[in-house]
């Protein structure tokens, strides 16, 4: 398949619609096409991209000098990625929104608005999103003149009590506020339900509680420090985020990674995928009272994590991916331990998968629960297992094949039912496929170095990392400043693209089924709030 063979057609459409593309580059952001457009055309370009069938992926801004922002949006078409960029004047930071064409852009644009003070003039929902009360209206943390330590010292700021939630009124309609502190051992966020009897009429999510200023505190770090931080953007996706950040930095620095390190990174990310799927399959079953599966899958996850600890030195595989490679090599005994762990899990799943797949009481609770229709999933641009369970047949490992997956046969399950059962089935299938991939990776593990020394790139070098984490597409943008220090870091967790799906798939379900629906989606709070 020829990459970007569709691009000339899209550019012709832009010309037809009078969207002026000033400049294009296939090299400035390695493996991604970069198009410069006027900020007035920001919305019109989205209209063209929408009509053409592109999927919206991300938006981020970057203050490149004292008076100018670069605003970037990323689109995907047939596994190719396109970044459009517009300069925005700090004195008048107003431009059209892309949200009317792509609902997925709604919250990301509001994040840009809160963090940079860039206003999207025709945005359908101009409420704040990431900002609660930690900084004042009219202050923007990612602008250069905003101090990283803030201006409030150790003051405890007020709770965000006056956020204008969507209201539903009518006889018998009542409201259930939940969170930010939830009943289980999970991350904080607020859910506002409107219900009639037991039926959910509307759910509105309010996130941002675990906003830790990751984008701001990344500034000024060196490459190794950034990889460490990226590994903590979202603790369950540590490998995926660290790899994406390293991929972005390595592309910026035009640095190649030894083949052995690439294989080991893929082994790590597949092990992370399997660990999370195991835990979540058990947890989904637990949410409908099927204790047997909770016990068994909890056991498998623990055994799996212990092997992580023994072989890679960390139960959650943190800090294994470093700029230029991986932090540790494996000897023959460790490789044997890994292979034994894969064989053991394979055998266990042969016994357990049929039980989970065909247990009547599970079918009763999971089939038809929390349905995300393929149409809604397409509208929202949903990715990962949530998308795959609703007819979205997209997996970067196959469709945007990056090393080392370009040499592998990647299978990706897809179903159309869109219910909790389908999401569970995608995960059991993915575990099987990941085990097969790991076997291929280890069988063809190249000899040689596991890391090359890191050479910092020149000021202004930028790169985009893209890969398939266990939740779906992870995107990471890095721009370097002087002396090899990071000037801009933007990690886009797939959670941004799957949280909106939860609001849709819960409609018409009963309130007591919310936990199982939520768990079947399992979007990250930390990865989203940054």
């Amino acid at each position, binding site marked *: 398949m020829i990459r970007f063979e569709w691009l000339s057609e899209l550019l012709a459409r832009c010309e037809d619609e009078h969207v002026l593309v000033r400049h294009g580059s296939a090299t400035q952001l390695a493996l991604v096409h970069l198009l410069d457009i006027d900020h007035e055309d920001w919305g019109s370009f989205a209209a063209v991209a929408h009509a053409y069938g592109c999927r919206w992926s991300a938006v981020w801004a970057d203050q490149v000098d004292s008076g100018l922002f670069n605003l970037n949006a990323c689109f995907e078409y047939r596994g190719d990625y396109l970044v459009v960029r517009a300069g925005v004047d700090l004195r008048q930071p107003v431009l059209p929104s892309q949200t009317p064409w792509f609902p997925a852009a709604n919250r990301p644009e509001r994040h840009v608005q809160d963090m940079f003070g860039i206003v999207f003039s025709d945005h359908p929902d101009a409420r704040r999103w990431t900002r609660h009360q930690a900084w004042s209206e009219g202050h923007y943390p990612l602008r250069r003149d905003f101090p*990283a330590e803030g201006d409030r010292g150790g003051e405890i*700021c007020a709770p965000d009590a006056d956020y204008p939630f969507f209201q539903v009124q009518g006889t018998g309609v009542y409201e259930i506020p939940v969170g930010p502190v939830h009943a289980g051992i999970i*991350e904080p966020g607020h859910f506002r339900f409107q219900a009639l009897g037991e039926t959910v009429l509307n759910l509105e999510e309010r996130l941002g509680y*675990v906003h*830790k200023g990751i984008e701001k505190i990344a500034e000024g770090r060196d490459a190794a420090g950034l990889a460490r931080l990226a590994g903590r953007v979202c603790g369950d996706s540590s490998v995926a985020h660290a790899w994406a950040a390293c991929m972005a930095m390595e592309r910026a620095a035009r640095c190649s990674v030894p083949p052995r390190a690439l294989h080991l990174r893929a082994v790590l990310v597949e092990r992370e995928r399997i660990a999370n799927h195991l835990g979540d399959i058990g947890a989904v079953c637990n949410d409908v009272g099927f204790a047997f599966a909770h016990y068994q899958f909890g056991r498998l996850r*623990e055994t799996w994590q212990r092997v992580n600890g023994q072989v890679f030195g960390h139960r959650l595989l943190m800090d294994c991916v470093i700029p230029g490679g991986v932090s540790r090599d494996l000897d023959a005994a460790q490789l044997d331990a890994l292979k034994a762990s894969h064989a053991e899990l394979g055998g266990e799943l042969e016994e357990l998968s049929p039980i989970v797949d065909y247990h009547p009481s599970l079918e009763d609770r999971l089939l038809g629960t929390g349905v995300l229709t393929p149409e809604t999933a397409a509208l929202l641009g949903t990715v990962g297992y949530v998308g795959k369970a609703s007819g979205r047949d997209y997996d970067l490992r196959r469709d945007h094949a990056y090393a080392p997956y370009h040499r592998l046969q990647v299978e990706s399950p897809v179903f159309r039912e869109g219910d909790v059962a389908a999401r569970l089935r995608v995960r059991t299938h993915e575990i099987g496929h990941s085990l097969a991939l790991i076997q291929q990776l280890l069988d063809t593990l190249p000899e040689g170095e596991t890391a090359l020394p890191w050479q910092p790139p020149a000021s202004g070098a930028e790169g985009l990392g893209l890969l398939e984490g266990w939740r779906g597409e992870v995107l990471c943008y890095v721009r370097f400043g002087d002396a090899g220090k990071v000037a801009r870091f933007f990690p886009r967790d797939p959670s941004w693209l799957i949280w909106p799906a939860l609001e849709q798939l819960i409609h018409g379900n009963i309130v007591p089924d919310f936990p199982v629906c939520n768990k079947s989606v399992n979007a990250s709070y930390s990865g989203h709030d940054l």
Partner: protein
Amino acid sequence: MLRILNKIRKIGIVTEPVAAEPSLEALGIEVKRRVGRRMRGSFAIRAVDAGSCNGCELEVHALNNPFYDVERFGVHFVASPRHADALLVTGPVSRHMAAALQRTYAATPAPKWVIAVGDCAVGGGEFGCSYASLGGVDKVVPVDIVIPGCPPTPTALLRGLLELLKADS
């Protein structure tokens, strides 16, 4: 059903002596005795995520898996601070969570303990102190014991919990 019963028979109970560390097992037995006497047999913990990356939560979850089975020491996690003897707090305390943490602390009946879990909760960790992060649980509520680690392993968590109980009784 037969398949389920067969699997249960084959796997049996995997709950193990505490990580093969004899001192820990002895501590566990002693703490169970103390929980029995001083806490009327149950030590209830309410977990609060105050800005963690979710790494600590995964390991706190692991405490409840069949290997560690923390309930056998009389320690269990509860859904409300009203039912809790202690708060287990993770994360550097994002400023957006500070008020919620304060309120959760206020809702916990005295006497109460606060356990700061993970490097972030202990001193800010990788996120430190910033416009968005307060840099540690002790900036918001008094802390009785810290369990460092990024994240602490279930064994480290268990050791910390047992030491808290022992120190206080």
